[in-house]
């Protein structure tokens, strides 16, 4: 007993199912949001370097706007704000919010990744008769992705952690489940400790997966 608080770790066993349900939902939201972020990010990244000034401006505005507002505000805006006009499920709003938010950061990485590929690569591809999109898909993006893998990993790890914010729009992710278990048990210390460990396991696994991925696709130099 420290400071009058007797720890009791057995509550974790009692509520393991509830907490793991939260883990599953957090993972599902994260995977779907990452998919949205990749699609939005590639699209916006390509638009950023478009020769069409209107397209480039719209993409730049999206990136700047998202980078300038807190994720919490953005989630509220989607769920309650957009939700005033269209019927949005909380989970859908969560995936859209996280995905579109992270997409802005992915777009910047995609842009810088593409700009880092020597111009001769595009010229060689185009000289062999490839269209711009073929050259992008077959030659430029595969190289750009290898380069941006490390910062991309960091961004997706952030996404898993930031997904805890969706608890404020009543999505029953790990964080909201944790709060519910604590309301039932008053075991804050034990449950939050366990939840922190669960988040760490998720993010650490993802970061190790990215490491393996990087090694697998490394270009020999």
């Amino acid at each position, binding site marked *: 007993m420290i400071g009058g608080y007797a720890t009791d770790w057995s509550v974790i066993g009692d509520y393991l199912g509830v907490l793991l349900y939260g883990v599953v939902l957090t993972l599902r939201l994260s995977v779907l949001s990452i998919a949205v972020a990749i699609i939005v990010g590639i699209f916006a990244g390509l638009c950023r370097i478009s020769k069409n000034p209107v397209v480039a401006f719209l993409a730049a505005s999206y990136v700047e706007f998202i980078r300038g507002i807190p994720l919490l505000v953005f989630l509220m805006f989607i769920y309650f704000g957009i939700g005033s006009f269209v019927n949005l499920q909380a989970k859908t709003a969560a995936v859209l919010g996280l995905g579109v938010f992270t997409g802005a950061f992915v777009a910047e990485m995609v842009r810088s990744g593409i700009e880092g590929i*020597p111009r*001769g690569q595009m*010229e*060689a591809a185009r*000289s*062999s*008769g490839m269209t711009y999109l073929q050259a992008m898909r077959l030659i430029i993006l595969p190289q750009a992705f290898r380069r941006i893998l490390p910062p991309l990993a960091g961004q997706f790890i952030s996404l898993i952690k930031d997904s805890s914010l969706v608890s404020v729009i009543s999505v029953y992710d790990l964080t909201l489940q944790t709060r519910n278990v604590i309301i039932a048990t008053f075991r804050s210390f034990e449950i939050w400790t366990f939840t922190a460990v669960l988040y760490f396991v998720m993010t650490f696994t993802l970061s190790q997966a990215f490491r393996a991925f990087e090694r697998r*696709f490394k270009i020999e130099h």
Partner: protein
Amino acid sequence: MIQVADVHKRYGNTAVLNGVNLNVAEGEVVVIAGPSGAGKSTFLRTLNGLEPIQRGSIMVNGMSVHDRRTNLNLLRQHIGFVFQHFNLYPHLTAQQNVAIAPIHVLNVPKAEAETRAKDILAGLGLGDKICSYPTQLSGGQQQRVAIARALAINPNLILFDEPTSALDPEMIKEVLDAMRALAGKGMTMVVVSHEMGFAKEVCSRIAFMDKGVIIEEAPPAEFFANPKHPRTREFLSKIIY
């Protein structure tokens, strides 16, 4: 095969090409020589539309290269291009580098394209390097892979942009030998190069370029023995060949 008439190009206020005229017939090997900054590489790059022009016309294989209605992708399916810095795709093996355009541009079945890539590479003495990545190859080997890549689309014309300028001296010969063999098979080639030995021995014609204009054109024997333009004479007096 190539008809160039009065081509002008400028970057901002700097004129690079000032009325270039050149005709190349099928089976000819034309070397474009001249001092640095004469516009040789820029000119070569206008031939497949890599560089836009402001005035004049370029016809290649009967297609007007700088006409907006021309499908450049279609035009380029018949023109190989070999770069000074190779520009091989670093994430692909030698074989994949060679096979990728046939597979995705010409819709050749993958297995067939890969077999053909292997054969072309073997023909250039790279049979044991098909699974190597570009960074595992020497400069001379990389440039030969680049030549194989240019050949893979079955071009009837290959453009070479200073193909030996980025190579160590001991690797120049293997690349020139590959080009000589191609010329021997009747490939139409336009070569920007400082390799006067190669020009003397292999090409049908030398076009000498200075300040964005081709000022003299002659078969190599005549070009070296009896240069007409003072600028050509000055250039030849300064170089070793």
